[in-house]
């Protein structure tokens, strides 16, 4: 008796039918069609996004400039035994002796190689000059600048010595010359101006982090470089 309203309403209403307006099905069809298309649109949009992002990242990567070339070659200094530093001064004398030998082979070597010894000689001369000038300023830069020419000069000499038959190693000599001529002399002024000067501290840090190839060996050197570039005062040097 108590539930009579329930029974009455259930009996009458459970199977009640009311036709919906015809437009309802059209809306359902439209919605279903949109749902079928949406996943493809989403996939296409995400692909486009990935491609755009990849393109932006690739195109925005800075061209290999002075810092990159210098920093790429710096880790090699760690890989080479310390003798490279000790050889920095002495072998130069030897190298001058070597270069004195190379002119004898000049007539036999191709014209490109014939240009190499003078340029290489310039490189070694600069290598000798620059450390002498800079030693009074900063130790780290001394190491960086002094190590570069010696490293490049050593393979260059060997390349020239054995390069009478093969001209491929000449490329290395040219690269060393390019680094020497373009960047090493300007290193200080470039770092202090334009891009590097205007970039934020975080940007500089990130750039340096990108360049780390050997985390254990490079981190210390990177740190020193960052401090040397950003805090050129003497305080830090005094502390060291």
């Amino acid at each position: 008796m108590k539930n009579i309203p329930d029974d009455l309403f259930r009996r009458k209403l459970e199977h009640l039918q009311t036709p919906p307006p015809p437009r309802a099905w059209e809306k359902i069809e439209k919605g279903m069609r949109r749902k079928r298309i949406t996943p493809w649109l989403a996939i296409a949009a995400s692909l486009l996004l990935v491609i755009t992002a990849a393109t932006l990242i690739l195109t925005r990567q800075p061209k290999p400039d002075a810092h990159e070339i210098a920093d790429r070659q710096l880790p090699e200094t760690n890989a080479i035994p310390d003798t490279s530093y000790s050889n920095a001064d002495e072998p130069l004398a030897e190298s001058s002796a070597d270069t004195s030998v190379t002119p004898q082979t000049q007539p036999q070597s191709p014209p490109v190689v014939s240009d190499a010894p003078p340029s290489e000689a310039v490189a070694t001369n600069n290598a000798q000059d620059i450390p002498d000038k800079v030693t009074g300023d900063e130790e780290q830069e001394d190491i960086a600048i002094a190590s570069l020419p010696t490293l490049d000069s050593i393979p260059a000499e060997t390349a020239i010595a054995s390069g009478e038959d093969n001209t491929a190693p000449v490329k290395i000599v040219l690269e060393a010359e390019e680094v020497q001529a373009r960047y090493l002399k300007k290193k200080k002024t470039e770092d202090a101006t334009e891009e590097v000067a205007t970039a934020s501290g975080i940007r500089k840090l990130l750039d340096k982090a990108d360049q780390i190839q050997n985390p254990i060996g490079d981190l210390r050197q990177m740190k020193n470089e960052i401090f040397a570039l950003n805090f050129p005062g003497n305080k830090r040097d005094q502390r060291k």
Partner: protein
Amino acid sequence: MGLHIYRAGEEQLIEGCRRRNNSAQRRVYDLYSSRMYALCQRYMRNSADSEDVLISAFMKVFDRIDQYKGEGSFEGWIRRIVVNEALTALRRNRNMALETDIEAADWDSQALQTVDHLHAQDLADMIAELPPGYRVVFNMYAIDGYSHKEIAEQLGISENTSKSQLSRARAYLRKLLESYEVPHVQNGGQ
């Protein structure tokens, strides 16, 4: 035999829906849309809302057809989706005043004898007059067969609240039935 054929036909339709076959979907819609639209009207106050609920519910039916594993009737599965959609719409509209209070009405058992001839549409109109909270609980419990536990879970209320809402809905409907019957009986007596 007839039931078996019906079942086989229904399974083919479901399989067609699983393959996203448009004509199979249309057949399912034609079979159940009228009953589901009437159900929507019991929960929603106006026909525009009922239509919206019907559309979104059928889109879910076709979208989630793979979730129907053949346990229970297909119509029951659709019905559950429609009820869920109606509840979602009601929640969205903040239309469920579950705590609406009314005075309890005494049921006149004499009236019961005279209301049985009422048309379904008249009863549907009475349900539409219920306050939203009562209407939902009465629909779910009395007509669509939900338990108080399920109602409590679905609506986020306690079972006791569901029970009290139901008893108040019943009282309200009794009152409506009595008021409906008085003129009817008077007319019949003349």
